[in-house]
């Protein structure tokens, strides 16, 4: 067969999956760095605030102050939009691919994580919006002092604001599930093709999801239990 003109590969189902995989990996890299940053809260208020300020100066003097941060934010925003965009197109195609539903449909036996990718993704998105308004812009934070991120975090997860901690926990656990399927899936989408590799990818994704969950959850629970005050 001679291929003279093909559809744009990026619009194909396989192409869209590759977009999701690449953007997903970018976001995961950010999550790792972000988690490590969060954990600095255990080194004390001064150190944590210093780290937060340092982020704004990152890249100087090559770049003006906060430029690096904006570049990173732009990349992450594009990645999030592309990730969601591709997911939406795929979800719509999937829906269109089965116009008449089964009258009797047995539950998917494979795994819970795979089944909750789409709704999980929505929950995570809502959380991210809240999270930015809370701890980045400070609008929804009870303290909202840009000069004192440590204080903001402590105020945020105060025991009487248990519902914030609950929402945070829910979002992080959802993220864990999302990553458990997503991380292994990303490798598959990018061409992982051996049974052994698949077992490794699944195991790695599980360990990674658990570590990331723990790393993120330890902060609010430390505040809740008074370990960080």
């Amino acid at each position, binding site marked *: 067969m001679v291929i003279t003109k*093909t559809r744009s590969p990026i619009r194909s189902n396989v192409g869209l999956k590759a977009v999701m995989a690449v953007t997903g990996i970018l976001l995961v890299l950010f999550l790792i760095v972000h988690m490590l940053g969060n954990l600095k809260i255990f080194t004390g208020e001064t150190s944590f605030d210093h780290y937060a300020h340092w982020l704004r100066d990152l890249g100087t003097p090559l770049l003006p102050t906060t430029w690096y941060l904006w570049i990173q934010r732009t990349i992450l925003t594009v990645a999030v939009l592309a990730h969601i965009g591709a997911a939406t197109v795929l979800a719509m195609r999937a829906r269109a691919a089965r116009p008449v539903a089964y009258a009797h449909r047995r539950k998917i036996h494979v795994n819970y994580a795979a089944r909750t990718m789409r709704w999980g993704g929505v929950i995570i998105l809502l959380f991210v919006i809240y999270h930015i308004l809370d701890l980045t812009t400070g609008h929804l934070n009870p303290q909202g002092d840009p000069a004192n991120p440590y204080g903001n975090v402590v105020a945020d997860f105060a025991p009487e604001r248990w519902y914030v901690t609950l929402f945070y926990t829910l979002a992080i656990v959802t993220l864990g599930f999302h990553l458990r399927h997503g991380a292994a899936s990303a490798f598959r989408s990018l061409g992982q093709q051996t049974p052994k590799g698949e077992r490794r990818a699944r195991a790695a994704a599980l360990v990674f999801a658990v570590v990331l969950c723990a790393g993120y959850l330890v902060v609010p629970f430390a505040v809740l239990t008074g370990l960080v005050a």
Partner: protein
Amino acid sequence: MNLTLRIWRQTGPEDKGRMVTYPVPDVSPDMSFLEMLDVLNERLILDGEEPVAFDHDCREGICGACSLMINGEAHGPQRGTTACQLHMRQFSDGDTIDIEPWRARAFPVIKDLVVNRNAFDKIIAAGGYVTAPTGSAPEAHSTPVPKDDADAAFSSAACIGCGACVAACPNGSGMLFTAAKVTQLSLLPQGQPERYTRVIGMVDAHDEAGFGGCTNIGECTSACPKGIPLNTIGRLNRDYLKATTKRAGTPGS
């Protein structure tokens, strides 16, 4: 044993269709699932009703014609078994069994449980072959093929094209079918010259037919009566992504 069947009845492509309940008494556990339907149909004919149309041919699990969603599972509850080799001893007296056709936009219902799977043929026509016109073949032993590659190619080639993967997939994706052929041919030296045009052509035909995309869930593999492995899809993805970097008309790209 006595069973209650709820079967999807649809007089034609335009009909909306509905589930209809039929009691089926005196089912022998030694009957195959399709023989149980034969018995029902014999009775329906004598009662002056239309028998249930369903696809079947070889009845030994290899032609891929049978295509029944049984209690929400493609080919029914027994793994690695097509509906024609499923036997009634897998069910118990008093069971209610729901029988539906494959459901996918790319597999429109023709009548009752019969669907049109022509989309699969189109995917093959778009590249699922090696161009080797009759008479042009070199001596069979001129190209040895490592045994592992030949065995792996066979495992993918075992696909019977029944469409259970599509029926089971929450996205209505035909990726496992497509990937099985891509993998078979890309593992063999004879498949190399067309390796990258093949995968682009087949994936395009797949998408065009209205199948959904793969989200690596694995329902297809667990429904597949021939156990085609999920990692064939990884190989398809790899070949596809590599193919996008090659430009038509640029040798060696």
